């Protein structure tokens, strides 16, 4: 009590202005003010739509009544949505694994090219990643087209029969994965290349003297040293691939018979094309818990290793 009254007495009117100035000059205040634009953008374009989507997903089709989790229940009971879950997981996991493997292989190849030639190859190999995917997918669509598929023409040259790329469900799934891998592998390549370059040469030399073959150096030095980059890249790519929309939309539009839909394209189909916005919102929200769990474990692993090693 005595303390309180002392403070009250010790803060006369002229002091108020200077303490406000001190508050404005504090580092945390300045930091907050400088990040405010970003906070507003994230709040307006991410947080608010996400919150609004959660609200929407709990309304009825005409958006007149609150119906709780009914939309989610209906979705889980529908065969076509279960197919979407399977297809999304299959698509994302297969594509990310292939992208990671091919990206790793490309990064290794590039890493062993002398610096001068490396830049040229690096630039060329990044091309798929910088072309807008909607455009490049159109190119692939043309190459897969049943009437004038250039890939089929090539196969025919080697006496292999034509493949119904987009006409048969499994081939269509594979086509979507091929295009996504083609588009996304360069991202893995560039991340892994940076990680490879950051492994100190002395570690490889020490391992060579310790008796490691080149395979053992990869297994015991390169991979453990790249673990953080590998997991963060896989996590990032998993999120982007799960949410992929443009490739499926342009290449198959979910067909044949809605068998190649992923969450995003199905949400669009249900919410916008079929006009059931609350259920579309519910579809898109299904990704969130899956990615949330994966992100939690990946980031926890990275944090743990950072504390121990870096």
């Amino acid at each position, binding site marked *: 009590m005595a303390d309180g009254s002392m403070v009250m007495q010790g803060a006369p009117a002229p002091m108020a202005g200077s303490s406000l100035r001190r508050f404005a000059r504090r580092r945390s205040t300045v930091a907050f003010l400088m990040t405010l634009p970003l906070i507003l953008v994230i709040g307006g374009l991410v947080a608010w739509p996400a919150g609004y989507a959660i609200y929407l997903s709990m309304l009825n089709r005409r958006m007149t009544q609150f119906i709780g989790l009914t939309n989610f229940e209906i979705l889980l009971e529908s065969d076509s949505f279960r197919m979407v879950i399977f297809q999304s997981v299959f698509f994302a996991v297969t594509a990310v694994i292939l992208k990671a493997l091919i990206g790793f292989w490309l990064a290794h190849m590039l890493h062993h090219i002398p610096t001068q030639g490396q830049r040229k190859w690096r630039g060329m190999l990044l091309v798929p990643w910088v072309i807008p995917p909607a455009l490049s997918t159109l190119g692939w669509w043309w190459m897969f087209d049943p009437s004038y598929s250039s890939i089929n023409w090539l196969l025919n040259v080697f006496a292999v029969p034509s493949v119904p790329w987009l006409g048969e469900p499994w081939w269509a799934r594979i086509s979507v994965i091929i295009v996504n891998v083609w588009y996304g592998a360069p991202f893995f390549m560039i991340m892994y290349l940076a990680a490879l370059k950051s492994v100190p040469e002395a570690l490889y030399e*020490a391992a060579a003297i310790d008796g490691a073959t080149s395979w053992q150096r990869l297994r015991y030095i390169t991979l453990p040293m790249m673990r953080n980059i590998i997991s963060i890249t896989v996590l990032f790519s998993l999120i982007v691939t799960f949410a992929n929309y443009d490739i499926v939309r342009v290449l198959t539009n979910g067909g044949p018979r809605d068998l190649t839909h992923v969450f995003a394209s199905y949400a669009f189909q249900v919410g916008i094309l079929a006009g059931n916005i609350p259920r579309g919102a519910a579809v898109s929200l299904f990704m969130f818990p899956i990615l949330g769990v994966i992100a939690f474990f990946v980031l926890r692993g990275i944090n743990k290793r950072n504390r*121990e090693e870096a």
Partner: protein
Amino acid sequence: MAQVSLRKVVKAYEGGVQAVKGIDLEIADHEFVVLVGPSGCGKSTTLRMIAGLEEITGGDIAIGGTVVNDIPPRDRDIAMVFQNYALYPHMSVYDNMAFGLTLRKFPKAEIDKRVKEAARILDITPLLERKPKALSGGQRQRVAMGRAIVRDPKVFLFDEPLSNLDAKLRVQMRTEIKKVHQTVKTTTIYVTHDQVEAMTLADRVVVMNHGVIEQVGPPQVLYHTPATRFVAGFIGSPAMNFIPARLEEASGALRLHLPGGMSVDIPEARTARYRSYAGKDVVFGIRPEHLTDDKPTDKTNPAPMILTPEVIEPMGMETLAHFKLEGAELTARLDPATPAEVGQPLRLIAHMDQMHLIDPTTDKVI
């Protein structure tokens, strides 16, 4: 354990730059040899060629009698300690030390025995479960040495292992390395740019400069009878004083004429050696410890010199005084009790028994 032979070893890089220009060196079994020289002298390149981390452009390297030119590092049976330790950051101290043995498929019990024994020698037993990040510089250095010891290789290679440590720890680890060598007695090749490390550790010191060997010998021999001006200047701290001079003969005795009108007598024992240089320009070399204050001395042939100090550096056990003599920078080691003052002429004596004369045309010590 084995002897190491270098025969006419050359290392040339693309563009024709020669880092090592045909060196010959025989290192005996159990010997501790230190390669020392300024940066860029080719000492590290030589070590890396022995390790197999650099290809050899010409000549032969043999370890234990086998030419290893085309044998990869892992089959040379060597162990190396790197300047930055090169510990595997994702492995515990134990795994770092065990790695080489695991790759060579040693039985688990044998690995465990060797790692624990090395940890005991190096006093790092309590650290075995830690990751390198949780260790201090000195502890990392010990682990790097432990990794080499457990392998029980034919040869230890050390590449400037103490450069990243602070001065106090460096002295401590230096002693530690010497102790380890006295215990395990493996042939050791050690690279450093620090002549004190070279002198204190080596059975024999190899002084390198510009890709060639200037001189090979035990530390005391290099100190007392350097072969070239480079070795004379490189070994010893503070470095030897070099004074341009002229050697003159007068009635059978030799006299050195120094800048500033000073002159000193050459001891009789040296006259025969230097006579052919009478009437020629030479360089007079004298170490700071042989240029001292004028006190009664049991050393023979003291020659007086009067110089005016520019800087006085009290070091506690001694005082260093710096002088300038017509462009030549000189240093003298004084008794701390000597009342030396900047700007006040000081009477010094040069102990001429310890002098050196250098031929300025060849830079060889006469």
